[in-house]
């Protein structure tokens, strides 16, 4: 498959990357592992004038334990993070979500930052230009309406990160550097809810660091997919527990992950959360399994995950 024409620029510092981005007047894309971006370019879903390679930036590759936080550089590979003993011990939900992400070879190339900032996906969106032209452009491509839900002036593409739901249950924060300076926000705040631009980022912003409060948690990640060897989540559920309270995050259905808190866990509270998660999950016919099945599985996985953590990991 042939790539569209673009310039390739290598950045050696965050400041240099932002400077190059500004020079291209916003017509540039940042590249790290490329496992999300390169297919988008090949399908002509993104046609930048330049691609700015962030891999040579040393500051994005560090993994450090500083005071109350574990700080993870955005370009740390998923495979390396998965092997980190601290992650396994303190953040089992994240460790399991890393293990569940795609396959080993892609985990070695893919980065945590890239996994969080991946574009939303839809069976009728991630297609070649020829296919999409024949079908007619949808809302997300700049067309008039959704191709999955007739006449809907909104997008129902799925946010398919495995790691973001896990990080959200761990109260992770993300730091961005951009032309307007630096900012740190809670991870669940970066989603815009607009399918055309799923992330609420300012132009030119780079995700530099993900930091997680350094407190031991119990947790797990449950994922529904057709092939266990790779595949994006059709439903992904992360649970992290501290003492008697839990945070639960459901991903893979719709534009943004939805987060639920559970305090003083008992059977009736678990049921309440399961029912809410099922009611709020609104899958449509844009993935490889039927919406009714995926909706049902949201409940199954949420309850399974909570019970698994309560039992100390065993299913």
């Amino acid at each position, binding site marked *: 498959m042939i790539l569209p*024409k673009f310039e390739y620029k290598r950045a050696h510092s965050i400041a240099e990357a932002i400077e190059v981005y500004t020079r291209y007047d916003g017509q540039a894309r940042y590249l790290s592992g490329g496992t999300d971006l390169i297919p988008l370019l090949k399908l002509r879903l993104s046609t930048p004038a330049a691609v700015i390679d962030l891999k040579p930036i040393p500051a994005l590759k560090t993994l450090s334990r500083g005071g109350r936080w574990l700080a993870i550089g955005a370009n740390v590979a998923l495979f390396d993070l998965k092997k980190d003993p601290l992650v396994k011990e303190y953040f089992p939900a994240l460790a399991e979500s890393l293990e569940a992400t795609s396959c080993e070879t892609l985990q070695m190339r893919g980065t945590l930052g890239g996994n969080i900032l991946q574009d939303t996906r839809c069976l009728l969106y991630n297609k070649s230009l020829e296919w999409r032209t024949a079908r007619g452009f949808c809302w997300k491509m700049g067309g008039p309406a959704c191709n999955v839900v007739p006449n809907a002036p909104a997008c129902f593409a799925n946010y398919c990160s495995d790691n973001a739901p896990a990080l959200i249950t761990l109260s992770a924060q993300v730091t961005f550097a951009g032309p307007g300076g630096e900012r740190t926000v809670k991870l669940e705040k970066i989603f815009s809810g607009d399918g055309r631009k799923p992330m609420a980022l300012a132009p030119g912003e780079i995700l530099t660091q993900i930091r997680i409060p350094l407190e031991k948690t119990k947790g797990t990640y449950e994922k529904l997919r057709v092939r266990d060897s790779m595949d994006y989540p059709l439903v992904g559920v992360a649970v992290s527990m501290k003492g008697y309270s839990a945070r639960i995050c459901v991903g893979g259905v719709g534009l943004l992950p939805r987060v639920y808190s559970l305090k003083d866990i008992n059977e009736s509270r678990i049921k309440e959360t399961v029912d809410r998660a099922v009611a709020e999950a609104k899958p449509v016919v844009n993935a490889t399994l039927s919406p009714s099945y995926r909706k049902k599985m949201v409940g199954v996985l949420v309850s399974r995950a909570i019970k698994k953590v309560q039992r100390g990991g065993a299913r």
Partner: protein
Amino acid sequence: MRTMKVTFQINNEQVTLQVRPYETLLETLRERLSLTGTKEACGLGSCGACTVVVNGIPLRSCLVLAPEVEGAVITTVEGLRQEGKLHPLQEAFMEKGAVQCGFCTSGMIMTAKALLERNNKPTKKEIIRTVSSNICRCTGYKKIVEAVEEAGKKATQAQK
């Protein structure tokens, strides 16, 4: 659009090439260096047929831009044969009949090579986990897993 100069080591040979900035490593290998052992199937990073080993890590060359490998050390399936002798993995794949149509084979062998390099005694479970990165539509994987196990054993024996 201007081409770029890129220098890297491929199968123990240093090369300097002029590449297009929007060229994949796979295109460079196949079209500029005629190393056609590396195959293109899906072109989107799903199948693993184009896997080559870059700095010890198995990478899908269809997802890597040619200018990204500046200074890298790359091994393709053509670089496995040493002094006229096939690599233990290649031998084992033939012996065990792990090749049917053969299209996934070079990617499969390169993925397995990277595994044996970082872990010379992989368990059967680890082998299955690793080769499941690559898609094979013929063999059902059983013989591939057996071949990697066999090559792993041979490599450990050779070290003793």
